[in-house]
């Protein structure tokens, strides 16, 4: 691995656009891996630590998280024009392309073959989402506070079927209080 440079390399807007277009179209659920390879390793726009920091922020800010990475990298390298360019490359063009493709598919959903194929895909996609959440949780499995809060959030949404906003309003202050109290205690 290369050492990170002190002065980040200047990013051209066209390079930001094309790199995030590629991350979006070739990422397939692994967009973060590809973004890291372009932004940190190949282009050296951000250091490893800066990239991790942006990732942490995006993980707990609301919204379509993957797009957040593009916005943050654009903002860090070229300010507002950079953020808009990264968004356009990541979301605008691939979104328009994907929408056209989706409409072509949807014209065919009455055909049993297409409907069956989509049933298979949606079952797998749901499983992958559960596994992604479990993967996030895995490094924290020996921390009771994290496991309890995650379990309560899961139960509130998936078992008790409470609205998300209610779950957040109840659990976020509780979790923050638990964090502060546990941190104050001597280990």
């Amino acid at each position, binding site marked *: 691995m290369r050492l990170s440079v002190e002065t980040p390399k200047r990013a051209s807007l066209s390079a930001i656009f094309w790199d995030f277009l590629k991350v*979006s*179209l*070739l990422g*397939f659920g*692994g967009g973060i891996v590809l973004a890291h390879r372009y932004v940190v390793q190949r282009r050296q726009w951000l250091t490893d630590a800066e990239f991790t920091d*942006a990732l942490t*922020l995006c*993980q*707990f*800010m*609301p*919204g*379509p*998280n993957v*797009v957040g990475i593009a916005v*943050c990298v654009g*903002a860090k390298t070229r300010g507002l024009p950079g953020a808009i360019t990264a*968004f356009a490359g990541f979301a605008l063009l*691939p*979104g328009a392309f994907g*929408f056209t493709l*989706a*409409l072509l*598919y*949807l014209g065919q959903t009455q055909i049993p*073959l297409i409907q*069956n194929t*989509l*049933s*298979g*895909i*949606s*079952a*797998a*996609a*749901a*499983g*992958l*989402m*559960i*596994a*992604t*959440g479990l993967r*996030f*949780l895995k490094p*924290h499995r020996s921390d009771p506070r994290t*496991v309890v*809060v*995650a379990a309560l*959030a*899961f*139960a509130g*949404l998936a078992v008790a079927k409470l609205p*998300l906003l209610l*779950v*957040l309003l109840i659990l*976020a202050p509780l979790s923050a209080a*638990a*964090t*502060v109290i546990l941190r104050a205690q001597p280990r």
Partner: protein
Amino acid sequence: MSPLGRLSLYLALMSSISFGGIPSVLPDIREFVVVANGWLTDRDFSNFFALSQTIPGPNMILMMGLVGWKVAGIPGAIAGASATAVPSCVMYFVGYRLWDRFRDAAWQKIARASLAPLTFGLVIAGGTVMAQTADKSWPAVGVSAAAAIFLLTTRINPLWMLGGAAVLGALGFV
């Protein structure tokens, strides 16, 4: 207010509170568009979800574009996608500026530590609710479970699992 206006406002609100990503608010969005307003059927909703997972690009923005399209055609698609993406991108931009400025502040460490566990639980719940809609047969439950296990225990690209499930579905097994 027109259906399109109501949908846009609702999606913008949901996107702004979707800690853990859009999947964490999918149950609420389904409730609003399928149950409360009847703009989409359950089948439309899970078809859009499945489609958006197979097409490269920002899949949740695409899914909300399709939901908007069902409500009001092409203008609806643009409104649905924009309502999902634009307010949260503005928040990402402003949030990142502040985050970067106060990188070493104590409140930032507490915020990081207390919100992360919520995120984990909400993502798992989002997947579970989608599975409840998608898994109408035991083989479908098996496919969901297999995909989850493969992702957790191997380094296989998830695209292969979606492709494999598509083939199983096409052959009529799911």
